[in-house]
C-alpha cells in the first residue's frame, strides 16, 4: 500500500499520522519508532485541544517526515546457498543510482513465522503436469515443516477469477480433493490472482512473519483486468515474496517463463522450473527465511517516484543479494 503523504482529518476524530512520502512498507519504521512517544504526546495534546473546541470544524493536517529506508534482503554464495553471516561492510545499496554505504542499522532478521499462500494455475494448459507437483509441495508445506495450518492458504485460478480453496485451514489431502476439475478452453487470470493473493496476505502481521506466495503456473495470462505491473505493485505493497514454479518446459524459454521470473525477481523471491523438483521451493523459502537481513539508511534522494534498489557486494563478487526491486516515494503536499 502506498501511503497518502498526509491525511486531512476532522478535528473531532482521533488524529492519525501517516508517513510523508515513501512506501509505508519499506520506509520509516525505525525513525517512527524512535519518535513515537514525543509524537504521541503531541497528538494527545492536539486531540485535547480539539475536544475543547466544540463547533470548530476546521481541518487540521498532521505531517511526519520520513527519512529512513528499510530494506529486507537475502544473500547467497556462489553455490546458491544462503549466507547467514554477513556484515555491513560486505555490501552497498544502490538507491536510485546513489551508492549508500552508511547504514543507520543492520540486523539479521529472525523470521519465526511463515505465512504462505499457494496459488495454483488450474487452467487447461498446465493441468496434466499439475497434480503431482502440488501434492509434493503440500506434503512438504505441512505442520511438520514448521508452518502451522492456520498460516497456509490455497487459491486456484482458472475461468474468469481466482477462487479460494481454503484459508488458514488447509490440509494437503482435503485441499487436493477440492481443487476444481479442469475444463477445456480454460482461461487464466494470472495477474488478477496475484493481486487477490496479495490482498489475502496484506493484513499487517507481526514483524517476525515472512509472507510468501508460492505460485504454480505457466505464466500465461489470458483474461486479467490487472496488468503485470499491477500484480508486481500489489506484491511489493504487501511485502510478500513470490516463489514461482514454472510449469512450462524450462528448455523452451517462453514469455510466460519470463513473466514468472520477473514477478519473483521484483519481490526478492526465486524462480524454479517444475522439473527441478518442488522440494527445492520449500528449501529456498526456509533458507531465505533463515538468511535474511534488514538494513536501514537515510533516504538518499527525495526525488518523487519509484526508487529502484539493488544490493551489490563490496569485495566478494560471488555474493548475490535478493531484495525487492524498489519502493515508491511521493512528496508531501
Amino acid at each position: 500500500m502506498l501511503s497518502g503523504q498526509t491525511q486531512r482529518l476532522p478535528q473531532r476524530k482521533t488524529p492519525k499520522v501517516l508517513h510523508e512520502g515513501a512506501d509505508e512498507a519499506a520506509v520509516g519504521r525505525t525513525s517512527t519508532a524512535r519518535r513515537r512517544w514525543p509524537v504521541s504526546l503531541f497528538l494527545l495534546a492536539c486531540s485535547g485541544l480539539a475536544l475543547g473546541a466544540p463547533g470548530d470544524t476546521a481541518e487540521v493536517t498532521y505531517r511526519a517526515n520520513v527519512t529512513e529506508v528499510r530494506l529486507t534482503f537475502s544473500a547467497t554464495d556462489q553455490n546458491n546457498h544462503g549466507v547467514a553471516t554477513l556484515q555491513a561492510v560486505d555490501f552497498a545499496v544502490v538507491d536510485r543510482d546513489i551508492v549508500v554505504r552508511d547504514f543507520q542499522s543492520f540486523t539479521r532478521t529472525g523470521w519465526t513465522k511463515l505465512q504462505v499462500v499457494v496459488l495454483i494455475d488450474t487452467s487447461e494448459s498446465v493441468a496434466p503436469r499439475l497434480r503431482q507437483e502440488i501434492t509434493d509441495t503440500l506434503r512438504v508445506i505441512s505442520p511438520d515443516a514448521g508452518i502451522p495450518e492456520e498460516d497456509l492458504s490455497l487459491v486456484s485460478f482458472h475461468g474468469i477469477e481466482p477462487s479460494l480453496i481454503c484459508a488458514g485451514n488447509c490440509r494437503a489431502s482435503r485441499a487436493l480433493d477440492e481443487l476444481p476439475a479442469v475444463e477445456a478452453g480454460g482461461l487464466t487470470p494470472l495477474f488478477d490472482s496475484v493481486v487477490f493473493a496479495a490482498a489475502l496476505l496484506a493484513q499487517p502481521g507481526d514483524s517476525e512473519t515472512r509472507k510468501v506466495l508460492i505460485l504454480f503456473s505457466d505464466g500465461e495470462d489470458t483474461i486479467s483486468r490487472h496488468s503485470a505491473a499491477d500484480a508486481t505493485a500489489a506484491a511489493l505493497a504487501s511485502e510478500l515474496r513470490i516463489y514461482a514454479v514454472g510449469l512450462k518446459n524450462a528448455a523452451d524459454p517462453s514469455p510466460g517463463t519470463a513473466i514468472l521470473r520477473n514477478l519473483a525477481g521484483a519481490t526478492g523471491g526465486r524462480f524454479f522450473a517444475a522439473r527441478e523438483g518442488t522440494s527445492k521451493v520449500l528449501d529456498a523459502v526456509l533458507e531465505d527465511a533463515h538468511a535474511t537481513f534488514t538494513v536501514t539508511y537515510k533516504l538518499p534522494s527525495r526525488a518523487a517516484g519509484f526508487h529502484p534498489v539493488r544490493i551489490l557486494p563490496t569485495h566478494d563478487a560471488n555474493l548475490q543479494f535478493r531484495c525487492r526491486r524498489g519502493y515508491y516515494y511521493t512528496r508531501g503536499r
Partner: protein
Amino acid sequence: MKRWLLLAVLLCSSLPFLLAQTRTHQSGTIVRMRMADCIPQHRIMAALSGGRKVPTGELCPEYVLVTDKVVYTIVGKESDQLLPLAEITRFRLQHNEMLIRIDDANRESRFHVLAMTLRPEWDRQQRRAEEEEAAVMTEGRQ
C-alpha cells in the same frame, strides 16, 4: 659473486619501473551506479565529443568514481561487468580507458571513460542539486 652482482643490477633496474607502476595507480570512491545503454566501441569517440549515444539494446553498468581532483564517469563494455562497491577503488588510466582490478581477478577490467569533471566543479553541481531539491521540498510544504 657474479650471481650476486647480477641480482643487484636487476633489482636496481626494476626499482624505477615498480615505483612508476605504483605511481600510476590512483584511488577513488564509487558514489553512483546505474545500468545504461552499452556503447559500441566505434561510438565511444562520438560520445566523448558530446555526440549522441547510440543504444545497442543491452545495458551496461555506468559508474561515477570520485577522486581528490577529478570525477570520472565510466561505463562497462559488457552487461555483467559489475564492480564491487568497496569504499576505495584502485584504478589506472590507459588510452582513454580506466583499468580496474576486480578482487583477485588475473587481469584488469577495462571501462570506457565517458566524462571527466574537475572535483570542485562537481562539488558545486552537487550542492546546487541539493539546494534545488530542498527548495522543491519547502515549496511542497507551503
